[in-house]
């Protein structure tokens, strides 16, 4: 599935391992709203651009960047300026 060493286009689902290091609830089923176009999809349905250091997650519809997750020796970075909100449905 994921070949982490190169730049690949995958599904948000494939970034789950990296993101799940940060979130307590299942991140792939969480709904995220894109700041650029306003549409809402499950994080698992975003487009993932896998890079050696981490992941760039883009909107399924407008291709805007909604999440960037990077794993560095100094810590984990999660940048979400491209998202309006992240909703975890009721347990």
């Amino acid at each position, binding site marked *: *599935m994921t070949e982490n060493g*190169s730049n690949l286009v995958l*599904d948000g*689902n494939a970034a789950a391992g990296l993101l799940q290091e940060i979130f307590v609830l299942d991140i792939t089923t969480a709904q995220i709203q894109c700041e650029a176009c306003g549409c809402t999809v499950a994080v698992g349905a975003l487009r993932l651009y896998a890079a050696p250091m981490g992941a760039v997650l883009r909107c399924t519809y407008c291709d805007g960047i909604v999440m960037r997750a990077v794993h560095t020796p100094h810590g984990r970075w999660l940048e979400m300026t491209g998202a309006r909100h992240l909703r975890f449905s009721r347990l």
Partner: protein
Amino acid sequence: MIETGAVPVRRLEWQRAEVREIVVETSRVKSLLLGVTSWKGHLPGQHVDIRLTAEDGFQAQRSYSIASPPEDELLTLTVERVDNGEVSPYLVGDLRAGDQFELRGPIGGYFVWTAAVRGPLWLIAGGSGIAPLMAMLRHRARWKVRAPALLLYSSRSLEDVIYRKELDAMARRDPDLRIVNTLTRKQPVGWMGHRRRIDKALLAEACFPPEQNPKIFVCGSTSLVEDTSRLLVELGHDPLTIKTERFGPSGG
């Protein structure tokens, strides 16, 4: 019955997996049957991350879909050898029963189907993209689910059809399961089935119509997934009912 939804996930910890058995699936593909001591179960469609550490400390990490159903004691990963890959040549070529490596999971509740989900199940696979869909089909068989299911499976040749005997046996036993194979590069003499890549006509022929609200799972190469999901939307399926999982261009 297993339910899906926003469940709290356990903190992802690396665990040791031990290879108990290796099954040769095709000339390029093997299944690794793993014992994971503290495995707490998974849902059909989920994946794991595996991590290999070389003697010099260099680590390589990859994700692999789980091919076994939650009901099985051993965890099955089906791995295709990627020439020049860092991880898969080792997994397919060098691993032996008794060897160990690190694994964490299960991961992802999005690309998941369980017997609790209502409605027809429509699975579309290319090559080793069959793996997570096989977990769903095996789970479905254990629960004797009667809702109709359809697998549309694209392979290069008959020899490249992963799980061929098991899929044939499953379809013979289960009148509610239909399996449609297409062989894109090489067909055996007398092959009566499809012989082209998945296209709109094939999807329109081997399908559940949108009115039946099928749950659709597509897994394969990026091009297969993108072409298929675009065509499904053109055929009138709601994009939200289509769940996709792309492999890298080099596969698993």
